Each structure stands twice: as structure tokens, then as C-alpha cells.
């Protein structure tokens, strides 16, 4: 779903071990697919142990900077049909639109608003983007527990100043990400319950911890599929309106 999630599967390539950019390129290569679909369940745990549960269906066509994605909420009933269209670009931030069926309106998500939380979860709108490796600078920080520790700094506009990723050496899956903004550590993302689907290692569970708000969001993947036939014209604003 988000750019970090899509970098989870990796193939062994010891020749790339010491060059962080090449490590990440390998991570991307191992997770590349023509399309993806899954049904996700979100549990948002906020203050006072409050839990909100939402479900959505996610579809993606293409990979990374050449991809488009539609996320459509399916539950609860109050939010069913609300959708988000993400059109990623290889050289700049994505374009995003939200569709609200009850009002019958689409709405562009401004670049300035990408740092806001995504509909009450601990992901931000920016976290839903996929960016190519060329949009970052990387630095290897060392090894830790059988994983490379790599720092990435976005070259273009981002709410984050840098991130630190842990990439497992054996299968090039990303197991943890710490995202920093100008105020310090902003989010911690853990990936677990890895499973191979059509040869791609995928974490079935992703947990995001918002350091400032002290809240968690757990995303669980279900019915995950890769390389299924999806049409390009299903990833447009007009299609969002039609589908509702």
C-alpha cells in the first residue's frame, strides 16, 4: 500500500550488499509487479484505548513511480464508497484525489496537506505514495541483527527530513522504518507476518506508531493478489465517480 510496504520483498544479491542505493534497488526489483489488489482491515488505536476499525480494497496498476492506485473504503457503512486515487510520478510528488459519494464531489489533495493524517489513521497521505529510488539519497549506517540499516533522504518536497530502514540481508525485506521530521522521530513502522505470494515476499501485518499522538494503526492484508488484469481507465477521477 505505501511506499515502504511495497519495498518489503527482496532477493539475495550479495554483490549489492555494501551500496545502499543498490540494496534498495534490489528491494524494489524483488517487489515489482504489474498490479496488486488486497482487502485491508485497519485497526486504529487512539487515546483511552479507543479502537476504530475500517476496511478498504486497494488496487494498484504498475509499480513505484510509474503506478496508479485506488483505495476504496468498504466499511463501516458511514464511510463506504469514499475513495482515494493516487497517481505516482517518477520525478515528483504524486497527484491525489478523494471522492466522496454522499456529497458527489471529488477533491484534489493539495501538496501542503499531504502531511495530514490519512482519515484518522496513523498514516499520512504522503505515506500512501510510491516514490522511485531516484527521489532519495541513501547512506548505509551499518548492520543490525542480520539487517542493513540504511538512511534515506528525500530529494524533493516531503514532510520527512529522513528515514531509517532495516532491510533483511537474507530476503531483502524491509522489517522496520523510522521516519523523522524536523521535530524528530515522527513515525515507526513495523512489518511482520511475511508470506510469499507469487514469489513476492509480503508482510501481512503492518503496524504504524505515531510518536507524537502515541497512537497505533495496524493494517492487515487479506486476499492479496499480484499481476491481475486491471485497466488503466479504472484509475481516473471519472472512474471514481462511476464506481460509486
Amino acid at each position, binding site marked *: 500500500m505505501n511506499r515502504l510496504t511495497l519495498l518489503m520483498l527482496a532477493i539475495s544479491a550479495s554483490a549489492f550488499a555494501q551500496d545502499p542505493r543498490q540494496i534498495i534497488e534490489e528491494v524494489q526489483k524483488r517487489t515489482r509487479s504489474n498490479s496488486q489488489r488486497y482487502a485491508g482491515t485497519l485497526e486504529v488505536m*487512539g487515546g483511552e484505548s479507543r479502537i*476504530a476499525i475500517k476496511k478498504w480494497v486497494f488496487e494498484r496498476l504498475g509499480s513505484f513511480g510509474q503506478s496508479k492506485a485506488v483505495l476504496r473504503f468498504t466499511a463501516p457503512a458511514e*464511510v463506504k464508497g*469514499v475513495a482515494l486515487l493516487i497517481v505516482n510520478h517518477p520525478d515528483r510528488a504524486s497527484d491525489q484525489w478523494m471522492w466522496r459519494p454522499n*456529497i458527489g464531489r471529488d477533491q484534489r489533495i*493539495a501538496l*501542503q496537506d499531504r502531511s495530514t493524517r490519512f*482519515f484518522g489513521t496513523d498514516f499520512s497521505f504522503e505515506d500512501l505514495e510510491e516514490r522511485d529510488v531516484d527521489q532519495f539519497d541513501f547512506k548505509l549506517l551499518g548492520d543490525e541483527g542480520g539487517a542493513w540499516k540504511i538512511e534515506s533522504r528525500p530529494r524533493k518536497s516531503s514532510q520527512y527530513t529522513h528515514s531509517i530502514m532495516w532491510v533483511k540481508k537474507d530476503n531483502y525485506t524491509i522489517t522496520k522504518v523510522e521516519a523523522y521530521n524536523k521535530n524528530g522521530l515522527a513515525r515507526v513502522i513495523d512489518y511482520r507476518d511475511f508470506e510469499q505470494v507469487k514469489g513476492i515476499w509480503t508482510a501481512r501485518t503492518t503496524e504504524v506508531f505515531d510518536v507524537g499522538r502515541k497512537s497505533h494503526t495496524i493494517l492487515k492484508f487479506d486476499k492479496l493478489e499480484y499481476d491481475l488484469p486491471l485497466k488503466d481507465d479504472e484509475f481516473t477521477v471519472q472512474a471514481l465517480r462511476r464506481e460509486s
Partner: protein
Amino acid sequence: MILLRLISWPYARKYLLRTLLTTAGIVLGVAVFVGMHTANESVLAAFHQTIDRIAGQTQIQISAGEPGFSEDVLEKVQNVSEVRAASPVIEATVSTDQGNLLILGVDMLGDRSLRTYDLEGADTALDDPLVFLAQPDSLIVTRSFADQRGLRANSQIPMKTMDGERVFTVRGIMKPGGLASAFGGNLAVMDIYAAQKIFGRGRRFDRIDVALQDGVTLEQGIAKLRSAIGPGFQIEPPSSRGQQFEATSRIYALASDITSVFALFIGMFIIYNTFAIAVTQRRAEIGILRALGATRGQIRTLFLTESAITGLVGTLAGVAFGVAMARGMAGYIGGLLEEVYGVSQSGGNIEIAPWLIPAAVAMGLATSLIAAVIPARAAAFVDPVKALQKGSFQSLGEGESGLRRRWAIVCAVLSVIALALTRDTLVFYAGYLLAVLAAVLLAPAMALGLARALRPLLARIRPVEGALAADSLIQGPRRTSGTVAALMLSLALVISLGGLARSSYNSLSEWMRIALNPDLFVTTAESVTARTFVFPASLGEGLRAIDGVGEVQLVRSVRVLVRNTPIMVVATDVGSLARRAKLPPVEGDSEEMYRLTAEGKGVLASENFARLQGVRMGEMLEISAPEGTLKLPVVGIVRDFSDQQGSLLMQREVFVKYWRDDSVNVFRIYLKPGAKEAEVRQRILDAFGSRQRLFVLTNRDLRNYVIRLTDQWFGLTYVQIAVAVLVAVLGIVNALTVSITDRRREIGVLRAVGGTRQQVRHTVWMEAMGVGMIGLILGLALGAIQLYYSVEIARRDLIGIDIGYSYPVQTALALAPVILFAAFLAALGPAESAVRGSLVEALEYE
């Protein structure tokens, strides 16, 4: 200080009632001044406070007048690199079952960068903004609003929307403070796109609030935004809003200043009168002081100090009274602004500007000191030898009288000359002042003349009492003239205000006959001036299809900035309007002006717009609009009462092109011959009333509404009239009180030779009514002159419209019994005082 303690204080204590009454004019003048300015400032402060609290971290607001602008401007703004956050806003006030609400429509995704939403309950709604955004019925209200109306999370609030009545759900409650305290807490937040639907805004925003990146100055930000979105938008800090309110409140302030100055002027006469009489009564005392070595300067200072203390006491009382009045006045002004401009002001606190109290004190003190200058001087020049001689010195010296008359003539002549030079504002107001001064200077001589003329009448009514009363007036000009002058000024004010009201109503009626002649009006609110909601233009076709409907005119009225002043732009099919409701031209050819305007080649300007803005026929106007700068010449000037600031009439297509806004505020409907108004009205309601917000007003409904609005405007005028009458009554009481004291010996002699108590009473009553009659005659005469100047002031500086001169005969006729009765009431107390006095003491007096 010693003199004050030994001489002044015993005198004041002895004549305590008179002293208190003397301050009455100061009290009322200061009270009106303080009350009105406090009310004005409080309403403005509440408005600015609301703006500030709603603005949050907003540094720049982008708007394009009332119509707003298309959504696509937002992307242009967001693409400016200097912009950190840009959030669109719709702001509207609605009536709900729970009271008036200021609705803030915002884009919740980005708005939290600008405004702090401090919600209760762990930020429930915005912890899950998806529900808030997904459900268009979502509202966030303030804690104070919720408490007042017993609302909780998930409570429901019905609201009339453009799609009919809808129920809204409270999905969050804001804690007090910050944004939640704007508009007195009567604020609700909803999603902006839901607000567009509710208010019929289509795809338009009212404004965009912007915060800039760190390090970018306001000037840089404004320049970049101007470059990105082009002309036709106001790009300014939030503090620049509110010009329309300030313009209206300035008019109120000016009108109230005139009233308070008049009241103070009248108060000045009362004080002058009292002190002049006091000097006469205390001549012996003054003579003794002078004989013991007191200098003229000391005597003068003594009286001026007495007057200053009197003025100070009156001022302080006036301030207290004014502050007490301010709350009611603020509510009144706020209500009027809501009615006319459609934006509510909540009750709010009263705020007293720091400059106001010192200014009021200065005014009160200056008035009392000026009033006492002449009596103090007279006291200082009292001859000690003559002062110790017994006798009355009531008669005016011929020299003094002659001097006054000469000065009066000089002032009158200069005033007439000034009339010829009325283009110059300073000369005009100087002429006005000179005219009033001439009347005041002539008042004693005219009062004396009228008293002599009234003597036969009074003697005819009651031979003894009437003659005594008239003789008292004739022989006591000093005592009488001040009161007569005060009464004259008060009644002149009443006549001028009454005349203004009468002229306004006459002019308004004529305008309504011509301009408001459709049979039915379809509006979005019961108040036809409210523009919160708008209709889609397509409704016009539906209305035309109703059986009985002959013609439908679409009207869009919006307030836009023209030459930095919010002006009402009225956009309609001018050709159709010209066939049905052609306004009389003030300048220009009637046929030509309407033809050119209908062709989109010009605009019609209202008379008050032309006058207040100094615009002439043929002059090119430039009006900033979202789609560019509209440049059109003024092809005609018409008499139009649509708006106090002025109005421009333009062809609807021109407006749609430049503002990309084809919505409608009002449909004007003319019926087919034979169609019945009530039936067609019901058909419209049956066809559309259930599925959308819609009101159908008859022609009579609208006229009554306009009259009611005008009554509200003049509501404060009636307060001013009451002030004038009250001051006059107090003046009479004061004069009579002095009179009774002055004539104790005379009254004692009258009773000693057989006069009954009732005869004494009648004498006092008739004297009072004589003063009232003289003041009335002079007041009605001066009122005719005062009315001329008031009409001119209204034309020049207040409303810009020539409402015509119409002497309020009915008001004048009504005033006669009122003043005579007031004079009678004023005489009751002094009359009883006169008959209760000891006969022996009275004969020993002096």
C-alpha cells in the same frame, strides 16, 4: 477652595434640586455620546474579534466580494511556492431552531494548519475525520452553544438548506477559547463541500485563507499571489475586513455625534441660564466679597469652578448612564447590521474605548465652562456698591439687547452668504453654525416680543393669573430666555429629525412604487436582504412554467468593492427591467441609459453612489472581478434606495461573464392579466417549496418589510427625539424653580392680599405653558431652517440622496399638546413649592 467651601457649597446645597437639574443637559448629552460610541465600538470590536478568532494563523485572505469565486483558484494559490497552507472557506449565518449560527465551511484536511480545533472527548470527530467528511450532515459546535441548547455528540440540529429542511448531526464539540469563542460561541464548523451544497454555492468559495512559508513577508506573499491569480481579487490581511461595517457605523457615529452635540448645546444653555440667574441672586454676596478684597479674577474663578464641578458631576453621571444604555444600543445596531448585511453580531461584551471617557469628560467640562464664561464675567464685574442695593436686576439692558441683535444679524447675513457657497463643506457647516447662533442670539428678543404678544391671550384665559404669568415672563427675560433657547433648540431638532423621517418615507414610497412593482418575489430568506443562500438560475424556467406567471426577472445582488467601498451590484436583464420598473433619472437620458446598460455598454449608478464617490456621468468605472477588471462607463444616474452605500445596475450577462456566477438571489414575478396573486403564490410553493428552500413574498409583504427596515433605521431617531423633549422639559423645570425662588416675595405679597393657593398654582402653570408656547413657536420656526440643513447634511455626508424638503406638519401639530402638557407637568412641582412656602418668610425675603 475656602470660597468654594464657604460660599459655593452652601448655595448649591440650598438649591440642590436646581443644581441637579442644571446638570441634566450635560448628563444626557454625554450619555448619548458615550452610549452610541460605546455601542458602535462594541459591535465593531465583536466583529473584529470574530474575524481574528476565525482567522487563526491566517496571514492573508483572498476574496472577490460577496459572490466569491470559482474553486479552480485554489489550485493556483496552492501552487505558489511561498504558500505554506491554503484553505478554502465558506462563511454564512443561518437561523436554526437553536438560534443563529455562524457556519464556517472548511476543508478539514488542510484547515488544521490554520485553525486550532480543540475538541472534547479525545478529538473524536477529527480522530476519525473520515466519518466527518463522508457524512455531509456533520457539524462541530462549540461547548457554549451545546450547553445553551442541551446538545451532545450525535445530537441533531434541523436547518433549512437550499434543498429543504435537513437534519445535521453534532459530531464534535469544541472546548471554549480560541476559535470556539468567535461570534460569541454561536459557531459551527462543517465540511466546505457540504456547505457549498447547503448554501447553493455551486463550485465556489467565499475566500481562501493563506499562511505563508517561514521567511516570506506579507508584501512578498501578496505580490506572488497577485501574480498567480491575477487582478479581480482582494488579497489582504484578515484585519482589513469589516470595511462595510465600519462605513455603516461611521454613519451612526456621525448621526449620534450631532445629537449629542445638540444635547450638550442645550445643556450649555441650561447651565448658562442657571448661572446667570445665580449671579443675579448672589449679587449682594458678590458685592460683599468684592468689598472685603476679593479680586475680579477670584470671583470669576469661583463661578467657573462651580460650573466645572457641575459639569464634572454631570459628565460622570452621563458616562455611567451612557454605559448602561450602550448594551441595548449595541444589540439594536447589531440587529440592524444583521438585517441589512446578513451577518450577525452576537450580543457580546461592551467595550469602552480608552479615548472615550477622557473625551466625554473634556466635552462635559468644556460645555459647562463655556456656558459659565459670560455669567462669571458678569459676576466679576458686579459693582460692589450697586450689588448691595436692594432691587431686581432682571431686565435686560438696552445696550446688551442691542448688541445681541446686531450680532444676530451679522451671523444671519453670514449664514445666508454661506448658503451661496455651499460647495465648500467647511463653509456649509460654518453657515449652519452661524444660523443656529443667530437664532440663539435673537431668542431673548423674540421671547420678549412673543411674551408681550401672548399677554392678551393669557389674560383672556385667566384675567389675573394669566396677566401675572405674562408679566413674569416679560419682566424676567434673563430667567426665561435661556430656557426658551434650550426649548427652541430641542424642538428644532425634533422638527428636523421628524422632517428627515417624513422626507425619507415619502421618497422611499415613491421609489417602491416604481422599483418594487412585481406582483411576487421569490427569495431564499424571509428577509429579502439576506444573501446567504442563492438559487440556481435554472429555477427561473420552472417558475415561468407555473400557470399564471407572466414574466420572471432574475436578480443577483452582491456586494463588491468599488473604489475601496463595498457597493451593491445589482445584475439583471436590464431591458426587461426597463419595460417594467424604470427608475427616474437624476442625470442622463432615460431611454438611452437603459438601452446602453442592457447592451452591456455601461452601468447605471445610484444617486448616492455618484454623490458619495464623486462619480460623474460618463466616467469610466473599474471594478475588479475574478475574471478580470470590468471597465464600463456610467451611462446614467438614477434615484435608487437599494443600498445605503450606493448601487450599480448592470446587465446580467456582464456579471456572469466577469464573476462566473449565474446564481440568483431574487426572482421578480409579474403575473398574467387576471391571475390571482394568492393562487399563483400557492402554486409556486406547491411546486418547489417542499424540495428546496424558498419563500414567496407578495408585493405588500415586501413593502411592509422595507417600511419595517426603515422604521428600524429611524428607531434611534425616535430615541433622539425623546432625548430632545426630555432636555426641554428639564429646562422648563429648572427655569420655573429659579422663577419661584426669584419671586418668593412677589408670591408672598399676592397671597397676603388675598390670592388663593389655587391662583398661585394657576399662575405658575400658565407661566410654564407660556414658556412652552414661546419655545414651541420659536422651535417650529427654527426647525424649518434646521430641517433644510439636515436634508443637506444627509445628502452630502450621510446617505448621498436628496430626499427632498418636507416640513413635518403632523409632527409639529403633535408637538404642541405634548410640549404644553410637558410644561404643565414641569410646573406641578414648582407650583406646589410656591404655595407651600411660609407667607411670613416670603415677605421677609430679600
